C-alpha cells in the first residue's frame, strides 16, 4: 500500500522503525546529495531484482 508522508513522519519511521529509504533520482543526483542512510535505486532500474535487497519486515520509503 502506498501512502504519502511528511518529513516528520519520515524522521519517526527512520528513528523508531528502521525504515529503508530509497532514492529513485538519477545516480549523479544521489551522489551529490541524499537523505542520510538512503540507498540509490534509480527509477529506471527499479525492478524485482533491484528491490530484492530490501527487507520485508521494515517500512520502505521512496523519494
Amino acid at each position, binding site marked *: 500500500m502506498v501512502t504519502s508522508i*511528511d518529513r516528520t513522519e519520515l524522521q519517526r519511521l527512520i528513528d523508531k522503525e528502521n525504515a529503508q529509504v530509497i532514492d529513485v533520482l538519477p545516480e549523479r543526483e544521489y551522489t*551529490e*546529495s*541524499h*537523505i542520510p542512510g538512503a540507498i540509490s535505486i534509480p527509477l529506471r532500474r527499479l525492478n524485482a531484482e533491484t528491490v530484492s535487497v530490501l527487507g520485508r519486515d521494515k517500512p520502505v*520509503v521512496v523519494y
Partner: protein
Amino acid sequence: MLGLADWRAGGLPTQGTAPLVQRVSDATRPDVPTCDVDELLGEARRRTYDAGWDECIVIDCDGIVVGRLRNQAWEADDAGSVEEVMESGPTTVRPDGLLQRLVDRMSKRDTKLVVVTTPQGNLIGVVVREEADRLLTGEPAEQIWRDCEGCPGQWVPKT
C-alpha cells in the same frame, strides 16, 4: 514526502559530495505561530505572545500563506478578525535559495524576518536574520536553536 527539497527545507542534514553551501532551508525554523483569517485578533495575539513571538503568519485551510500579523496590527480591536488587519500577500522566499544572499538582502532592507514557502505557497517556516547571521558565522545549528522542536540541528540521523 515532497522530496529532498522538503527534507532540506526542514533544515535536516544530507549526505553527498555537493559543496557545503548554506541554503535558506538551513536556517528555516518551522515553529512560527500561524493564524487563521477568521480568527479573532485578541486570540491570535494571545497565542502568538504566549509562544514567545511577536509575529504570526496567516495561512488558509490549505496551509498557503496569505498574510502576516505584526507591529501596529496587534494594536487593533481584539474583537476584529485577523483578515481585517493583516498584511496581505507577504514577500516569501524558497528554501533552496542561498542563505548569504538572503541575509544580505534582509540587511539592506533592515528586515528582521522573512517567510519561507514552497513554490506553491505552502508555509515551511521563517528565517530570522539574527539567527541566520549566527549560522553564517559558523555557530552550530544545535546551539542557535536549542529548544525548538523541528528546528535545524535538532535531528541527527542514526549512524
